[in-house]
Structures are given as C-alpha cells and as structure tokens.
C-alpha cells in the first residue's frame, strides 16, 4: 500500500480569544500571539484523606483552597463508625469494656475507667483504694503511651521522620508493661465496674521503676531532637492560634484548651481515683498556638512520670475489686462521670432502666469536639500549616466515629 499521494494536512487555525481578528495570518503561524495576563483563577476543593498516615484513623477533610491559602475546611467523618453506643445497649455492664477500648484505641484505660466510674456513681459502689490507685497508675502510663504516639506523628506531620522511630521504640517498652498487667497491648478490657480485673502481677513495680529510670532521659532526647529543632519551632510558633474564647465556643478540652490558657483539667476540677492524693502540676499555655500545645503535652508526660513514681511507691495493699454480682443491674437513673484522657474530658453519660444492660450509653469524646474547630482554625492559614494544626489537636478518629 502506498500513501505518497496524500499531502500532509496543515494544522487547523486555533482561534485566539481576545486577539484582534486577522483575516490572513502571517505565513507559518496558526494564530495571533497574545499574552496571558487575564488568567482566570478559581477556588480548588482538595480532598485530604480518607487515608493519611498520621490522622490516627480514617479522616477525610475537604479543603477549599485559594492558591496556598485555606478558605474553608470540612471534616467528613464516620469511616470508623461501629455503633459502639448502640452495641453497648445489648452488652452487660462488665462486657462494655471491650467496646470502649475500641473507641479511643490509644488510651483504652481512660475510656474503661470513665465507664466504670459512671456505673459506680449510679450504683453507689464503693471501690477499694487499691483499685483506684491501680486505675490511676494505668491511666498515667497510658497517657504517656498515647502522647508518645502523638509526639512522633506530630513530628512526621511537620516533616521530621526520624523522631517517630525513636518514639515507637520507647513506646514498645511501655506497652510491654501494660501487657504484663492487663494481657493486652492496646485492647485491655481490664478496668471493670467495681475495681479492676486482676491484681498487679508480682514484680511489675520493679519493671515500672526500671522503665522510669530511662524514660526521663528518652524524653529529654526526643524533646531536644524535635522541640529543640529551629525549623520545627518556626513551623509551630504563632501557627494555628486558637483564642480561649474560640476554644470554649467549640467545646475544646484537654491540652488543646489549656494551650489557650484556660486552666481546666478534670483531674483537678472533679478529682477521681487516686488523683486527690497525688502531687502534680497542670502545664498551661498562653498564646494558643501549636507550639503551646506541643510544650503542654511534653510537660504532661513529665508530670505523668512524676505521678507514676508516686503511685508505684505508695501503692496500697488490699482488695482490687469490690464484691459485685455476676450479672450486675444498675439501679434506674442517670449518671455522668468523666476522666481527663490524653485528649481532654472523656465522659460517659449512662441511662439505666434497672436492667442488666445500659438503656443508653453516651460517650462524650474529647476528639469529637476538638475536631469541630477545624474550619475556624484552618481558614486563613496555609495548606502546609493545615496538617500541623490538625495534628496539634491530637484527634483519634476511633472515638469521634464511635
């Protein structure tokens, strides 16, 4: 087959918008050259997620962008919705713990304890002193384990990869301790209404003391590695400033609220477990920027280590659980109790009709409210800062979606 007879067709003329019409184009040109000074721009909707390595779960954020600047942000949640509140209505009181571990899976002891405290408040159950001390000990250990994950992923969000590896290494030693006590690394199911499931294993106090001896050094090392880095500081200081008024308006609690200078900590405001007998400080911020929230959480880890030392040294002797019937029936009524989880006020509101299962269990998850501020906090900032600001709020999607 030959096709030499076919002449190449010239490229069609492209009409140029805005250019003066010319009937005859210069030889060799397809159109009249013109500038691009009237470039139309428009806002872009950027889908961040649903997969992002450090959002602690599955979060989808829609960002409306004008160039680099965030105009609006909306969180699309629910990817981890398992119906924990609904399922609790079919579980007996001692079975609810398995569900609660899966709400905030980085600090299971706090959610379990909040539920146990609510049941005990409703049923007027007297908890042995040792059980309260064990709970406080576990909650503070868990607070450090949770903050360690946060500080590592926070560094990753700001572009620092290496610290995460150090923190995961050191967290492992802590999870070993939690495992030796409860049998689980993250899904503990150890705190039950009336006390705790079992006594502390023999020798765990020495294990904790050994860990404590090195933890202070490790913490200083991380803090120097990350917080001492000037680039990291510049990324955080005066970024994501949340005023005390705004923080309160959106129901923020925990370090995110204290970063804005509001002195509220459930351990102080409504002491529970062994906290009335412990000596500790509550770090406070002033400006409400990401740096303040970072400094507070690092300070909280130091305070937690201080409390753990007191708790191990002063651990009372005695029973670790109250006498409870095999199937407990809470009296009809309502109660609310809360704990200071690593993320803020974690409350459980319980409604009982006198039956063997809760009639309604509501989990007041701190991350749920901490997340609701993102539109207010991200708008007007840069897209690179959006990641840092969200990370500084320390949200766990498991308890948001429930």
């Amino acid at each position, binding site marked *: 087959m030959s096709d030499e007879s076919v002449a190449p067709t010239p490229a069609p003329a492209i009409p140029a918008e805005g250019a003066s019409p010319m009937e005859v184009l210069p030889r060799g040109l397809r159109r009249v050259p013109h500038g691009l000074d009237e470039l139309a721009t428009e806002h872009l909707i950027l889908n961040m997620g649903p997969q992002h390595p450090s959002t602690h779960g599955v979060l989808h954020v829609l960002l409306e962008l004008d160039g680099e600047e965030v105009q609006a942000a*909306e969180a699309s949640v629910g990817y981890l919705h398992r119906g924990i509140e609904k399922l609790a209505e079919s579980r007996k009181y001692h079975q609810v713990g398995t569900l609660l571990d899966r709400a905030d899976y980085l600090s299971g002891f706090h959610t379990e304890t909040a539920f146990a405290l609510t049941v005990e408040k409703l049923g007027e159950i007297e908890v042995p002193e040792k059980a309260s001390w064990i709970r406080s000990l576990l909650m503070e250990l868990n607070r450090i384990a949770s903050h360690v994950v946060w500080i590592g992923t926070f560094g990753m969000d700001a572009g620092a990869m290496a610290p995460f590896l150090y923190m995961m290494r050191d967290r492992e030693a802590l999870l070993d301790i939690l495992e030796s006590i409860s049998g689980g690394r993250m899904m503990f199911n150890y705190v039950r209404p009336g006390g705790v499931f079992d006594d502390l294993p023999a020798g765990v106090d020495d294990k904790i003391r050994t860990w404590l001896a090195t933890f202070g050094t490790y913490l200083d090392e991380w803090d120097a590695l990350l917080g001492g880095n000037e680039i990291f500081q510049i990324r955080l200081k005066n970024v994501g400033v949340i005023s005390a008024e705004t923080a309160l308006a959106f*129901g923020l609690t925990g370090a995110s609220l204290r970063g804005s200078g509001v002195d509220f900590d459930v351990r102080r405001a409504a002491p529970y477990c062994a906290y009335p007998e412990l000596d500790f400080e509550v770090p406070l911020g002033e400006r409400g920027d990401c740096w303040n929230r970072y400094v507070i959480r690092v300070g909280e880890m130091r305070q937690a280590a201080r409390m753990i030392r007191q708790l191990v040294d002063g651990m009372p002797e005695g029973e670790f659980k109250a006498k409870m019937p095999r199937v407990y029936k809470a009296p009809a009524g*309502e109660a609310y109790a809360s704990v200071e989880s690593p993320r803020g006020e974690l409350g459980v509101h319980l409604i009982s009709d006198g039956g063997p299962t809760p009639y*309604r269990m509501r989990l007041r998850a701190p991350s749920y409210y901490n997340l609701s501020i993102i539109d207010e906090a991200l708008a007007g900032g840069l897209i690179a800062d959006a990641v840092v600001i969200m990370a500084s709020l320390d949200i766990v999607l498991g308890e948001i979606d429930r």
Partner: protein
Amino acid sequence: MPASTGAEVLRAAGVSCEGADTTLGAVLLLSADHIVEAVAALNEAGYDQFIDLFGTDTGQAVEVTYHLRALNKLEDVYLKCHVPYDGELRSVWAVYPAALYPEREVAELLGLSLSGHPNPKRLLTTDGTPPLLRKSVAIRTAEEVQYS
C-alpha cells in the same frame, strides 16, 4: 447548682421549666420549642462550656439532653426536652458552636430533622441508613441472628 436556681434563670428569660435534683445533678425539663431561648439564657448566666448533647429514644419520643457547665464555678446543668419522632430539633449553634456536630448526629441517628443549622447533613452514616439509635432498629440484623 440546685435545679431551682437554674429554673429561676430560665423563668427570668420567660421560659417555663420543671427543675429536679437527680442522681445526675440539676436537670431542667422544658419544651423543645423554647430550647434556644433557654440555652441562651444559661449561657448569659455564665454557663460558658458546652459539654455534650445527645438524644435518647424513650419509647414515646426522643429525649434530647444538653449538658452545660459554668467553668468558673464548676457547676453542671442538664437541660432536657422531648421531640416527637417526626419532629424538628432547633439548632443552638449560634449560642454554642460546639453543638454543630452533635446536632447533626442526633438528627441522623434518631431520625429528627434539623432547623436553623448551617450544615444539616448526616455526620457519621451514609444516606439510607435507618436511625440507628431508635429502639425500633434492631441491634442485630435477621441474618446475624440466624447465624449466631
């Protein structure tokens, strides 16, 4: 705070309510029509922290609970109102922006409609999901019961 003090705050704002001191604390029971005014009056009276909002299926209607706190006095108050199953929940977001998420959740999980909300979408579940927290929605599906 005793419930009588809270009831007085509401009465001054022209909202009638029934106050009771229960195991929960001070509970004020009022009509759902006046919830926005009542919440605004308590905010004005120093209840600056919004703790929680959730709904419960009582078997006759949806009971919506508002949990507020005065941060400087550390006093909690609970407001409760009943909304019929096909009723409408008035948004209090203009007083407490923290209510934006839980109101959406109450509306979708208990099958109410929202009014006065700037973004009355579903929050946790996809379109077509039944109101899961209604007692009429079974915890297990028929298939699960069969194979369990």
